[in-house]
């Protein structure tokens, strides 16, 4: 199945939880970050409850310089 991570198409072999997905695809999660799933904010406490399916869109964001 295909999912979209930060706008990029990514192939997944199986359905996994959002928590597992983040662990597998981001090694830099020691930085502070937050997630939106299908354009909705997802609090950290809900990562393990969400199962990723075909076509889902995941945004993983962090702090950057801004004015």
């Amino acid at each position, binding site marked *: 199945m295909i999912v979209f991570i*930060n*706008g990029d198409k990514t192939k997944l072999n199986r359905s996994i939880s959002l928590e597992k997905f983040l662990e597998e*695809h*981001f*090694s*830099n999660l020691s*930085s*502070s*970050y*937050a*997630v*939106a799933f299908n*354009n*909705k*904010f997802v*609090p*950290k406490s809900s990562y393990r409850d969400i199962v990723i399916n075909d076509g889902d869109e995941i*945004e*993983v*964001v*962090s*702090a*950057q*310089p*801004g*004015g």
Partner: protein
Amino acid sequence: MQIYDINLDTDIILGSSGYPSPKIFLNCIKILKCQMVTVSIRRLIKNEDNNFLNLIKKTKCRILPNTAGCLSAKEAIVTAEMAREMFETDLIKLEVMEDDLTLKPSKKYTIRAAEALIKKGFKVLPYTTDDINFAKSLKSLGCKVIMPWGSQIGSGRGLENPKKLLKIREEMPDLTLIIDAGIGRISHVCETFEIGYDGILLNTAISKAEYPEEFARALSLSMEAVKKSIKSGLIPKRNFATPSTTTIGIPFKK
């Protein structure tokens, strides 16, 4: 300057973008005794360390996350929610633009987003134009801080419509008003305080100056000077001439 329940010792919020080096950014914060900095929310690049947050932590400043780049109320709301979790703050600098070119704040979507965010418990600092009705709508929703533009972001053109900005000040004496964009020169800073605004938020004027620390020093001096001058009790502006020299005893007068 009062930002909701926070009392800042200085009347400046500093943007964190575009400095020649992290060291220069830190030096500018020190020179200005700045206590609040803005940051943006952007996609995390896979497997790449994000050192920016560590840099921000070093400043010991309060963080004011922004929603820069958002073109809809929905994008701004989700961005604000992500920022709140990351930074553990209810403060949000709300920016919803009409388009990417002019970076003009969208009245319709900014108001819509502000309404939703206030209901969710956010303390909203909206970026607006100098339209009094825009400001009035936000005030009626419960915004305690409003941040009109002086002119377009990064333009350095200063306060293009001081009369309209003054009208907002006159109608909203109790709100904290901050000029958020367009400041490029020290004279613009002085004008901001002279029309009674509480503070400035600036980024490009400092970060893109050839010598940012020198600009920061000049800014610090000018803020001190303009505030002292205002406290001295400025003369009112008049529409007629008033002689400063006594008119009694003018020679040759018949």
